[in-house]
């Protein structure tokens, strides 16, 4: 697995440096801005101007222009070169001597008076890139000396170097790096950190400098990269702690550099590039005879013995795109997130989002929906990008166009699935769940119509149960686009809901009616008719109700009438005028009956009209049943019961109207009796009951019913009337038997004896009746009268005793003693009493006799006080 993170670009070709002199080798390099300095083994310094050139293909290349070369005159290789640009000096190590040359002329700087410009016996030196000393015109340098086990700290000025500190080391140091006060040293057998200010030291880890060349490379603030045993690049900070996991490069690494987020290492034949983010090897470049690798202000420069190259990092975005192109999503994201601090915040956010979206699409293409969803969410993907993958889902009215450059390589879902229908199905299911989740979030802001329409289409196509929920709740489905789609999938009920949601209730109803009538097929709801009734029932559009009620009533009057009877009472719904409804229901007798029943029995309407209408309808029904032949007795009975119940219970209907209709009907005498009762024509009623119907139990029941809300006297009057009717009837029809009014009279007396005035009854009764016959009545009457007598005696006695008790209490109150003492004061003069003679005011308040006398004298009106009794 590799990434193309860098490109090797030649900078200084062999010809330019040495022509045909085969023995000349590059020993060291330094780059400072555009200025490139090379030190060679024949003691020359070469100065080049390095220009970046972008070729027509957009590739970066370098053109080097030789400015100068200078022989240093020491016949030894130039071991190291370091620029101190602020001083315009190059610090040179050659023949174990450190000295300064001018950056432009390359002339050796002569020693200034009072200080040397040369340090002898040096094996290696380093520049402190993070000096504690803030002076910009001096450079701090750590120097390793060949003889002593010390590190010396020098300050380098324009024309002199000055030793400022010397610290001892336990072993001979062979490589050094410097940051702040911290020296990171490679000793003979180990690495260590040494604080030259405090002298504190920290061993890092053992390492044999003899076996392998140590590497000590400062990579950032107080952080170093070290070559460790086993071919590792170890990180260590100034406290001796490793904060990053090591990278595993090769055993024979010559030098290394960091170009974030990569560690670049050079060995004899390769450049290896590891990521610091995940420690993985990312790229390997073949590079023969390499022996120098250094980074200068972020630019990594390599040199073989004969030529110089620049390792140009590819743009981060390009690297990430390469990773994505090879579907290495995780790595791409790590790289992106790792680069967060190197990119301006707003730019990073845009990049990061885009990468997340692309990553999501890659995972989507691999059907890793969970991961894809997470990345879409984090990347704030415009959902329409995803929807647009599915053919025909976006509404025609959508203004969406895919983003450019494209986020993915798919033309559409079919391209992605390559004809695999199962894949397509998976993708659709994913989109359903994804859209379902995002439609109510801010992700859908601005494209709610597109999202909801797409979701509707998917639901319809997949026969998904949430289709109805979507339509029943708040939604933004585009009507024009959804209608053909729903029709295509026979979702007529849903289509009706959509019409309704868009305020086209009429269209909705027409759709549903066609389904109920069997013109269209949609089995979504088996109770669609009831649904329509319900719908009309709670519709606020009266025209609609009038328009479609007819259809519903024709279809099923019993259920259809619910439109009117089940209409909820609420402020939002306009009330239907019952008169209008009745007019409308005119043709539908059954429904009209039900509606009137609803008005009268349930809503307790107090309008005479409705009661009469209902009673007449009941009556007509009974009459029509009676006129049928053969008669259905059961139905007749039921119809009559209803009629009778209404006639009895209601007080509002017009009795005369009904009576008029009943006048000629000899079959409905009971009803007539009831009507007479309503008119308080009890004699007529009882006459019908007793003589025409000879229905004595009904006659009795009539009396009880007609007097039920009246007082006892009224009831007594009725019963006496009944008794009279019974007894009178005796003269006309003198037949015997069970149906005999006389027997009924006896039964009546014996059963309801308590209602009658016994004395009056006895007077009325024919002489010939035996005592035995009336015994229960007489027994009860006598007993009742005895009972009443005794009860009143007891009541009298109790009242008497209560009266006595009250008298007793009163006396007790009045006979209470009045206490007078020397300590008590008179209520009138407030002086104390000195003698026992006092006058007592009402309520037992004692006062002086003279005070009262004076009071009486002063106010003649109070003269009654003198009447009060005098106690001691």
């Amino acid at each position, binding site marked *: 697995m590799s990434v193309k993170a860098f490109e090797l670009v030649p900078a200084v070709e062999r010809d330019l440096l040495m022509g045909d002199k085969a023995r000349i080798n590059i020993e060291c390099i330094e780059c400072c801005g555009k200025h490139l300095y090379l030190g060679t083994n024949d003691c020359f310094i070469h100065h080049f101007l390095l220009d970046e050139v972008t070729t027509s293909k957009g590739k970066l290349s370098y053109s080097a222009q030789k400015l100068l070369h200078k022989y240093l005159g020491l016949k030894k290789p130039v071991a190291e070169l370091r620029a101190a640009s602020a001083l315009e000096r190059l610090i040179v190590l050659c023949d174990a001597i450190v000295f300064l040359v001018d950056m432009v002329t390359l002339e050796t700087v002569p020693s200034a008076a009072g200080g040397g410009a040369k340090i002898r016996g040096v094996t290696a030196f380093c520049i402190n890139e993070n000096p504690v000393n803030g002076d910009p015109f001096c450079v701090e340098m750590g120097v390793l000396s060949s003889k002593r086990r010390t590190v010396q700290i020098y300050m380098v000025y324009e024309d002199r170097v000055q030793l400022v500190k010397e610290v001892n080391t336990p072993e001979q140091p062979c490589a050094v790096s410097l940051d702040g006060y911290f020296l990171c040293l490679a000793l003979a057998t180990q690495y260590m950190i040494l604080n030259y200010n405090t002298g504190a030291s920290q061993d890092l880890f*053992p390492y044999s400098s003899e076996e392998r060349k140590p590497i000590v490379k400062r990579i950032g603030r107080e952080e170093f990269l070290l070559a460790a045993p086993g071919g590792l690049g170890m990180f260590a900070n100034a406290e001796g702690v490793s904060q990053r996991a090591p990278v595993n490069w090769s055993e024979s690494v010559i030098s290394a550099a960091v170009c974030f987020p990569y560690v670049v290492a050079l060995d004899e034949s390769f450049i290896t590039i590891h990521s*610091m983010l995940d420690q993985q090897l990312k790229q390997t470049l073949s590079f023969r005879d390499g022996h120098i690798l250094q980074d200068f202000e972020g630019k990594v420069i390599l040199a073989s013995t004969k030529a110089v190259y620049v390792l140009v990092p590819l743009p981060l975005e390009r690297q990430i795109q390469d990773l994505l192109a090879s579907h290495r999503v995780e790595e791409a994201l790590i790289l992106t997130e790792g680069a967060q*601090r190197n990119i301006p915040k707003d730019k990073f956010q845009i990049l990061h989002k885009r990468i997340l979206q692309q990553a999501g699409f890659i995972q989507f293409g691999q059907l890793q929906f969970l991961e894809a969803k997470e990345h879409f969410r984090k990347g704030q993907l415009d959902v329409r990008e995803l929807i647009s993958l599915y053919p025909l889902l976006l509404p025609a009215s959508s203004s969406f166009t895919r983003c450019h450059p494209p986020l993915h390589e798919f033309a559409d879902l079919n391209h992605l699935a390559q004809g695999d229908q199962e894949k397509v199905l998976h993708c659709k299911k994913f989109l359903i769940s994804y859209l379902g989740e995002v439609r109510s979030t801010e992700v859908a802001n601005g494209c709610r119509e597109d999202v909801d329409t797409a979701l509707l289409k998917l639901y319809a196509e997949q026969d998904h149960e949430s289709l109805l929920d979507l339509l029943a709740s708040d939604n933004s489905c585009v009507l024009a686009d959804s209608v053909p789609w729903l029709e295509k999938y026979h979702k007529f009920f849903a289509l009706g809901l959509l019409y309704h949601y868009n305020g086209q209730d009429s269209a909705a109803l027409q759709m549903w009616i066609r389904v109920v009538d069997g013109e269209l097929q949609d089995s979504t709801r088996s109770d669609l008719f009831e649904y329509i009734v319900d719908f009309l029932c709670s519709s606020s559009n009266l025209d609609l109700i009038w328009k479609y009620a007819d259809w519903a009533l024709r279809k099923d009057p019993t259920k259809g009438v619910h439109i009117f009877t089940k209409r909820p009472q609420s402020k939002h719904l306009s009330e239907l005028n019952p008169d209008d409804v009745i007019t409308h229901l005119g043709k539908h007798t059954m429904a009209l009956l039900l509606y009137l029943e609803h008005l009268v029995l349930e809503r307790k309407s107090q309008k005479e009209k409705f009661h009469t209408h209902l009673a007449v309808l009941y009556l007509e029904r009974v009459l029509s049943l009676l006129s049928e032949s053969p008669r259905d007795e059961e139905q007749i009975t039921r119809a009559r019961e209803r009629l009778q119940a209404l006639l009895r219970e209601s007080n509002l209907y017009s009795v005369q109207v009904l009576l008029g209709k009943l006048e000629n009907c000899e079959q409905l005498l009971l009803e007539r009796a009831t009507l007479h009762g309503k008119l308080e024509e009890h004699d007529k009623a009882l006459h019908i009951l007793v003589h025409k119907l000879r229905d004595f139990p009904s006659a009795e029941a009539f009396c009880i019913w007609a007097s039920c809300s009246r007082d006892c006297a009224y009831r007594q009057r009725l019963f006496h009337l009944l008794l009279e009717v019974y007894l009178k009837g005796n003269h006309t029809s003198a037949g015997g038997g069970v149906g005999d009014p006389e027997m009924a009279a006896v039964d009546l007396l014996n059963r309801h004896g308590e209602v009658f005035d016994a004395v009056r009854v006895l007077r009325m009764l024919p002489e010939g009746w035996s005592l035995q016959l009336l015994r229960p009545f007489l027994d009860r009457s006598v007993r009742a009268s005895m009972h009443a007598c005794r009860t009143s005696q007891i009541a009298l006695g109790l009242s008497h005793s209560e009266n006595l008790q009250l008298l007793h209490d009163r006396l007790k109150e009045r006979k209470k003693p009045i206490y007078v003492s020397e300590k008590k004061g008179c209520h009138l003069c407030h002086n104390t009493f000195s003698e026992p003679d006092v006058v007592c005011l009402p309520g037992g308040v004692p006062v002086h006799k003279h005070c009262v006398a004076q009071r009486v004298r002063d106010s003649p009106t109070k003269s009654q006080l003198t009447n009060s009794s005098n106690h001691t």
Partner: protein
Amino acid sequence: MPELSKMKKPDVKVVLLGDMNVGKTSLLHRYTERKFKDTISTVGGAFFLKQWGPYNISIWDTAGREQFHGLGSMYCRGAAAIILTYDVTNWQSLSELEERFLSLTDTANHDCIYALVGNKVDLTDPKAHQSQDSDVASEDRTDSEDMRTEPQLPTPPTSPASLSGVMLQKQVTPEDAAALYGRILRYKGLDETSSQPAEKMCFETSAKTGYNVDSLFEALFDLVLPSILRQRNENQESPTVDLEECRGSSNKRAKSSCC
């Protein structure tokens, strides 16, 4: 130079030490990814950042190979907890801890806590087949089975009962581990009465089945909390204001100041 740290600075460090092939990487893997998969011998070291409540805990997985031995003390520097891992089927792995690895811990914090963990207990103990993790999939059991037990068994066993026939000899008992724990405390010059007791700090785990793995790490994290608080407290006393830390930690500060 760009700021190199990619993530938030860890608050505390936990280090896994132990001989090669005892299963340090697998333990960490099981804990962080809830899976058991083939690992290759760790080169150098690797680390994982665990978010534990409001704290970041870095867990360092070290290389057990002798070759990388020298790096151990660097990893242990400033560690708040060290997990000394051995293999219950290999006595040598326990003695290596004492001989080679104990000295590496000299660089750890003075209040560093030590846990002794006997891994691979699934090979010797049937109870270790019931993992406490509900999410241990059976599939990762079978695919790794081949690696260890195939020589003894023609077909990969599916139930603990059939496995018990090929149980390996347990070479290290919990008592051995507890004894070593006592010696570690003595080596550290720690008072046994004031340190964590051996029964609390000696674990037997199975990275393969997940047995005891979560409880190991969670117990350790709970124990290093005071160390985190102390460290934060020290940071608070420094003149540098850490903007990320100054919210809502005043009560914790008060708590830690007494110890």
